[in-house]
């Protein structure tokens, strides 16, 4: 039994608990109140407020930032379901502003242009839960260590192409599989490897000051934590994953989900739910597409129903990943 009084992060239970309430659902990207209402009516479990849907960010280029607070407020007032909002990777101030506006969850998202080349936000400093993308097992572990309440695949947003989401699910699952065969010593080595990205800035500074041969100590590399503390914490995350044989958080799929069949595939692969971005409001009939994706997520093994809801639906125009700049690398 969890003794809440002794829990270091009582907030952690509320944050992870909130994420649990979205399980089995569809989170839909919206840019205004009107779209938010359509999403709610179609059965979205939550809406994600952002300035432009990923396919428009991709087409128009430029710097993608958090949504205009005016729009966020409009969206917050227009629906009764939770409202999430995207914040640039490492943009502490955007995160605090969105929190103060009252959004229910932040998405520290690669879809927006990153703000910090070294660090993701320390998510434990915020009262609202944060969802983060991950392409690989180490990425997922780092985000969990930083206090994310939910993980999603990065996929390749705005393409309507599912291959990257599948790649990321398979990659994370393979990491979990390998973890299960490791001894504690081997696992600690893995923890140290995963922790290395927190020393990137220090390595750079030390090289500038002393050249390659000499290294500065790794104290205070991330929010007052030294390398040893970080790898110890990451080791704990790994132990938890090994014990559960899955990520200890709600795990959604995102990035490229454009049809009901795509959503069903994600659920079939063991995801807890899906995020759909451009797939809905870039399709021919957003209301119908939104409803069909909700149905597909709920009934992902009812192939007759999937056939019915998919009939005559025209998905968004897709992009071949080889021809584009990948947002997931941000």
């Amino acid at each position, binding site marked *: *039994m*969890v003794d*809440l009084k002794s829990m270091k992060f*009582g907030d952690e*239970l*509320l944050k992870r*608990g*909130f994420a*649990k*309430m*979205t*399980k*089995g*659902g569809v989170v839909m990207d919206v840019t205004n109140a009107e779209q938010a209402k359509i999403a*709610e009516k179609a*059965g*979205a*479990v*939550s809406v994600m407020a952002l300035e432009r849907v990923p396919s428009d960010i991709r087409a128009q280029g430029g710097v993608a930032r958090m949504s205009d607070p005016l729009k966020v407020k409009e969206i*917050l007032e227009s629906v*009764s*379901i*939770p409202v999430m909002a995207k914040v640039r990777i490492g943009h502490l101030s955007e995160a605090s502003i969105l*929190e103060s506006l*009252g*959004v*229910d*969850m932040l998405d520290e998202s690669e879809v927006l242009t990153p703000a910090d080349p070294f660090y993701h936000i320390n998510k434990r400093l915020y*009262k*609202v*839960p944060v969802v983060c993308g991950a392409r690989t097992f180490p990425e997922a572990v780092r985000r969990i260590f930083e206090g994310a309440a939910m993980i999603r695949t990065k996929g390749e947003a705005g393409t309507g192409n599912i291959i990257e989401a599948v790649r990321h699910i398979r990659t994370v699952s393979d990491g979990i599989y390998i973890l299960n065969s490791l001894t504690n010593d081997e696992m600690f080595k893995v923890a140290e490897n995963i922790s290395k990205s927190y020393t990137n800035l220090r390595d750079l500074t030390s090289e500038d000051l002393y050249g390659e041969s000499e290294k500065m100590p790794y104290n205070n590399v991330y929010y007052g934590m030294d390398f040893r503390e970080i790898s110890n914490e990451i080791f704990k995350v790994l132990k938890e994953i090994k014990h559960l044989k899955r990520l200890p958080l709600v795990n959604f799929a995102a990035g490229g989900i454009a049809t009901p069949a795509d959503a069903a595939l994600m659920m079939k692969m063991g995801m807890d739910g899906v995020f759909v971005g451009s797939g809905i409001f870039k399709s021919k009939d957003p209301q119908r597409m939104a409803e069909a994706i*909700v149905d597909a997520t*709920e009934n992902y093994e009812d192939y007759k129903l999937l056939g019915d809801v998919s009939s005559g639906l025209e998905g968004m125009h897709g992009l071949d990943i080889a021809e584009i700049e990948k947002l997931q690398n941000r």
Partner: protein
Amino acid sequence: MKIGILNVQGDVSEHFQMVRHLHQKYDVYPVNVKELGDLQGISGLIIPGGESTVIYKILKKSGMNDRIIEMAKSGMPVMGTCAGAILLSSDTGDIRVTGMGLIGITIKRNAYGRQINSFIKTVDIKEIGKFQAVFIRAPGIESTGNCEVMSRLDGSPVMVRENNILAMTFHPELTGDSKIHEYFISMVRTVEME
């Protein structure tokens, strides 16, 4: 005895685990209720938390809404937590979700505010005792009809019972404390023995 866990949307697996852990002690086991046919043969039903608008929509579409009302009216115990309490209520005050009218309570959705206002507090529950209650974007019970108020927080009811229906605005499945689930199972056993 089979305890159905409504598996439409929300934190279904947490309730499932909770009932599974009580298997040996009470000879109960959890079953997923995903469609109309799954309601067959269950002795009790738990409606988990999640998004009430989403759960309601799917319940209506699948025909489960009416069937659950029928089964509850003929005596099957039903427990609703958070969104589940909204669905069991007689008045939700919101056209987006219609309650099943199984328990005499008027609900206000998101009564405490948004996620930033979510909280954990110890409540005192009649026949159960102290319980760490996790309130996440919780609804409020604005008024009660014939039901028994089992627990209050700052004067407002947070857990109520009317005959075979049990509803609470918090999440007993998130803390690992199984007292409320055990209480519900005892309700189911009482009905089974009659």
